């Protein structure tokens, strides 16, 4: 009797185990499907098209270290790179739109300007990062300013300009940017054709001779920090000349561009006077680069509320943020709106979080978080901390 029952029990458990295995196998297959739906193996932005929309692609580690070693990704996103152990960007419409335009632009015509705008935390900077990655892989010379606000709102130091009366230099920031530029374009700067067109007299004794390479110019700016700001302006001019000559193709990407037109900076002159951006030496070079009077280049800038003082953050629209002068400087530009997540994008980012084990799966979490975050990626990232 006991024997029989034991056998029966054994049999039943055996059957059960088979069932469990089967279930596990189907679940795995299902999991694979989900994997495919929110990730894309295409890591080259050149090949991205509307099929890859709302999917995540990961930037290869070596590209990431070249491009964003000295900033360029939002702070919280940068910490999550470490947490998730990879740099994943979502393929979204604004970036794809601009990349598509960059592919079709006639580079013999004057420069086309794009302006990314949108509410706080919707992903303007990351869209810019996507575009920069595209530019990097397509051998553009990248003139990338990670965040103009760092210069206008949080300058490391400042001093009176020696070359221009009444102007201010941001020495350390300028030198840091030159280093950023050098790392981003290390590959292209090896090209010996990139020479400067004129002799530059820094002081009586220091000169950079004609036909020396761009690298030498940059090195000089980094080593002699006093001339860093001026070096940027000269570099901007030289880049324009080289691009017009067809020696390089340039992408100018500036995050928080409207800071160049916002009068209330936190740069102070000797008597605690506020220095407006048009009195800061750096500004000239980057405004020069965003003009339309050159070719073989494209300009992508973002306008952001966060770059101006909190009391003036009343609208996220480009005309308000750029002001009259800024608008006239960029006009005609192509405004590209960055909106919050759509349902589909939200779904795929939630799948990604689950895959990275960043959130605990439980029923109805997606709808709840979509409702709570209102589709805003930044809020979402903040909210999922507690799940």
């Amino acid at each position: 009797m006991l024997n029989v029952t034991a056998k029966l029990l054994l049999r039943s458990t055996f059957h059960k185990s088979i069932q469990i295995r089967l279930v596990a196998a189907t679940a795995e297959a299902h999991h694979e499907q989900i994997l495919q739906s929110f990730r894309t193996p295409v890591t080259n932005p050149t090949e991205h098209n509307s099929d890859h929309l709302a999917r995540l692609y990961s930037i290869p580690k070596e590209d990431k270290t070249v491009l964003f070693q000295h900033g360029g990704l939002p702070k919280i996103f940068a910490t999550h790179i470490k947490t998730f152990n990879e740099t994943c960007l979502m393929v979204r419409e604004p970036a794809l739109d601009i990349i598509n335009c960059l592919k079709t632009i006639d580079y013999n015509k004057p420069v086309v300007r794009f302006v990314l705008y949108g509410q706080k935390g919707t992903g303007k900077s990351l869209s810019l990062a996507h575009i920069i990655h595209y530019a990097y892989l397509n051998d553009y010379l990248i003139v990338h300013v990670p965040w103009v606000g760092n210069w206008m709102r949080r300058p490391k130091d400042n001093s009176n300009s020696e070359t221009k009366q009444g102007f201010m230099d941001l020495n350390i920031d300028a030198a840091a940017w030159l280093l950023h530029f050098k790392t981003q374009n290390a590959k292209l700067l090896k090209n010996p054709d990139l020479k400067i067109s004129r002799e530059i007299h820094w002081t009586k004794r220091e000169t950079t001779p004609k036909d020396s390479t761009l690298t030498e110019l940059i090195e000089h700016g980094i080593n002699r920090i006093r001339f860093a700001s001026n070096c940027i302006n000269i570099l901007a001019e030289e880049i324009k000349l080289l691009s017009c000559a067809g020696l390089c193709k340039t992408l100018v990407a500036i995050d928080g561009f409207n800071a160049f037109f916002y009068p209330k900076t936190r740069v102070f002159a000797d008597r605690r006077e506020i220095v407006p951006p048009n009195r800061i030496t750096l500004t000239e070079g980057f405004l020069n680069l965003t003009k339309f009077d050159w070719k073989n280049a494209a300009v992508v800038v973002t306008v952001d509320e966060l770059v101006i003082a909190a009391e003036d953050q009343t609208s996220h629209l480009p005309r308000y943020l750029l002001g009259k002068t800024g608008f006239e400087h960029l006009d005609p530009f192509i405004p590209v709106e960055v909106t919050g997540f759509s349902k589909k994008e939200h779904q795929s980012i939630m799948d990604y979080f689950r895959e990275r084990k960043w959130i605990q799966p439980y029923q109805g979490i997606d709808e709840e978080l979509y409702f709570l975050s209102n589709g805003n990626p930044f809020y979402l990232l903040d909210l999922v901390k507690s799940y």
Partner: protein
Amino acid sequence: MLNLTRNLELSFRKIDKPLYKAYCNASQGKHDEFKALNIRNVKDHSHSKRSVKKTQVLPPRTNQMAVDQDWGSVWPGPRSFHPATVPLPIRQGYTEKGAPPPDKYANAELMKIPNFLHLTPPVIKRQCEALKQFCTPWPKALDTMEKINKHFPIEVTSSDYCYSGPSIRDPMARIVTLRFNLKSLNLDDRAKDKFLRLVGDRYNKETDLVTIVADRCPLRKQNMDYVMYLLTALYHESKKIEPWEELKSQADMEYYDWTKHASKTNVEDIFKCKFEEIPGIDKFSDAVSEYMNEGENEYTIKKYGEAVRTLLQLPFSKEITNKPL
């Protein structure tokens, strides 16, 4: 001394007895009954009950009214509702559920509301007939509204008030309202702009009407003169060009004129030709003007973006994606 007192006593006795009595404290010959104290307040039946006099109520007048009576003479003027005069079975008022509303007798609801029983159509007709003899015939040539507006562009409104009070004056009768079409002044663009700035919110953009109200003088005639003075002054002031008006700059412009802004020169520099020769420029200039004039919103930005894309011959965002939202 003793004599004097006796004399006095004698003369007192001679005085009339009742008068003497009246001045005398002592009880008179016949002794009055001593009144008992009514502690329990028992009613005294000596008072008779007051009889209530009933007022005679006539039967309502409506009972005697003829069917073809002249209602205008029954109810000649405005008056609050009276149930006996109105021969209608009216009911009004709130009651508990199921019960009919109270009828017209002693119905405060009916008396509260204003009525127009004095303004029945036949009465109005009769009054109009009576007034006709004081009217002049309408000019035959003015048969359409356009003609009226053309020949009589100014419209003056004032109100008369009728009173049966101690004073027949009403302070509101002094107010004069002048109204006219701005178009009828035939002003040029500059003068029109100045006129509108002078007039302020008295101009209605939708109807193109200017309305000026004067009530500062005590009499209507004075207000009327003042209104006409204002109209004249406004007209001539807006035609006048002051030397400081030449200083009007871009920032003072009330609308965005694309041809006078940097946007135009930018586009001309990009294409290196006059803006008239650029294909797609109309759409662009319209979009920029709308962007600036209407203000910044999703719609104007989108339109601007599309215009720039057609101008610079770039692909539209829809061409890369068919994203289902």
